[in-house]
């Protein structure tokens, strides 16, 4: 199993007003699954993604990623896990604006300690894969939203993560650009990547093979996607 979570609880606000963003969530995701997480605003989707992505520790519960217990890890160990096992794609792209596209993409490799020559090769390949090899020297503000998100996807992939996490990756894009991004994710899934996607739109969720619905911090349903069912049928 790639992800094994049991009884994950996340509480915000330690003293006065406590918000329980997640209440005892248990979840397993196997390798090469394509999971969509849906649910109303404030239901805890982003919170769950941040915990899966080792950005935020759970308040309680256990979480192991590829057999490794990450719920007890220290910050620098978690940084290493994020660097090597997880690729993030955010709704707001989160690129470094004053660095060019190439540097943005090679950054995870820098933090891993890869040599310059290898970095160049890997980053160029990743940019080629998202169709932006000719925009390497440009800065993110010079790109369109869809292009920026493709850069972010290239950056998420350079370290060959076991898990690609995308929190509303099309949320800031128009529908055409959004579906371009979605087909890119489809290709990545076909290449063997494990993908978890947060989305509001059923249209997007249909790309996934499994849909988890959250409500008020608990999993309401966990079903195989109807589209997937149709496709396989």
């Amino acid at each position: 199993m790639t992800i094994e979570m049991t009884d994950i609880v996340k509480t915000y606000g330690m003293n006065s007003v406590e918000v329980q963003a997640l209440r005892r969530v248990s979840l397993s995701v196997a390798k090469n699954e394509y999971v969509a997480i849906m649910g109303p605003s404030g239901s805890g989707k982003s919170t769950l993604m941040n915990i899966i992505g080792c950005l935020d520790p759970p308040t309680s519960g256990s979480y192991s990623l590829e057999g490794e217990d990450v719920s007890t890890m220290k910050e620098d160990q978690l940084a290493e896990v994020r660097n090597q096992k997880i690729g993030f794609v955010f709704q707001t792209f989160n690129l470094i604006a004053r660095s060019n596209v190439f540097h943005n993409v090679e950054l995870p490799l820098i933090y891993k300690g890869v040599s310059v020559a290898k970095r160049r090769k890997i980053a160029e390949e990743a940019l080629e894969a998202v169709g932006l090899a000719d925009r390497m020297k440009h800065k993110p503000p010079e790109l369109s939203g869809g292009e920026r998100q493709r850069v972010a996807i290239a950056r998420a992939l350079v370290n060959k993560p076991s898990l690609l996490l995308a929190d509303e990756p099309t949320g800031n894009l128009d529908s055409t650009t959004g579906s371009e991004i979605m087909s890119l994710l489809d290709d990545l899934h076909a290449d063997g990547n494990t993908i978890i996607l947060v989305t509001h739109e059923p249209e997007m969720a249909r790309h996934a093979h499994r849909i988890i619905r959250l409500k008020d911090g608990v999993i309401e349903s966990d079903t195989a996607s109807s589209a997937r069912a149709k496709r396989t049928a």
Partner: protein
Amino acid sequence: MKSLRQVLESLRIGFDSLRANKARGVLTALGIIIGIVAVITTMTAANGLSNNFKESVSALGSDVLYVSRMPWIVTGNFFEFRNRPNLTLEEAELLARRMRSARAVNPTINTSKSIKYRSEVIENVEILGTTDQQMLVASAVPEIGRFLTRFDIRFNKSVCVIGSTVRERLFENVDPLNKTMKIGRRRFRVVGVMEKQGSAAFFGGPDFDSQVFVPITSFVKAFGGSHRDINVAVKAPSQASLADFEFELIGEMRKIRKLRPSDRDNFSINQMDSLVGMFNSVMGVVVTIGLVITTISLFVGGIGVMNIMYVSVTERTKEIGIRKAIGAKRRAILAQFLFESMAICAFGGLVGLAGAFGVTALIDRLVMPATISPGIATLAVVISMGIGVLFGFLPAWKASRLNPIEALRYE
């Protein structure tokens, strides 16, 4: 290998962010620049003063004792010294006869006169009545012609030896040898010109190159001597310790002056070391004050750097979040910001160094010989980088401890 690479990357990232904010970096570095210019200039000036001073006092000779009415450095009750009798020529002659072990005994007497050659006049020139023995106690020798001889002294010859500056100003292109010039209203024939020695005038001491030497006997005859105070230079024999020799000298002087055992000395024995000692203690205070002031200015510069680094960290909170999300460890973030502040400070240090070279060149041309030693230059750069680390540390530490989620959410 891997960690070296990561250090280099942090360095590059630090520099990159500086390039994005050039004007701010330069303004911040200004504090460091000023501090470094001040530090280097202080140290260089102190060095230059020291060298200049040592050069000029070395002319006094380290094995020569100077007998005079007043001590060179007056400490204690000035009035006690004021009532002392002048040292006379007769006493000097007696001393010369009694101090058999001395290698030289040279009485001198001085005054200030105007000197004249044809239409050229120089006012207020130091005229020194001296003897042939001066060649034994002082290091400077004539460049052309000769010094005063025993014969000149014995027979009150109206001859003189002039310093190199006097020659330049009074004679210009004329060969001064055997020309007759006027000292006050008396005529003296030039028999020699001294080599260039440099000046202690910066310390209120004599400008050796602007002196005119005449036989002490002719001096007394021409300008009067009974009311004047003379100094006697006594050169110690090479084997004796200076302390023993000083003891002997004091004893002889007391005999000459017929002092009773209960009487205090009514003369003073001076030597170069006492001047050096005084100079060192004065310089010590000056340098300490200078360093305190420059340290404060560097400190203020450092606070400026710290302030800008805090601004930089706050501005780039989101960036820090992004970097952490994709796997930057704490030390990578720490290094990035440390290098950034070090780069600002190193820049300030280098510009400050360049500025200090300019200031030093000015001092060298206008005030006194001065050069920046490689040691001081290196120290300045090291100090400025140190300030970068010292004052950059807290902001960089803060950046490295940011929570990744909160940093990412920062707008």
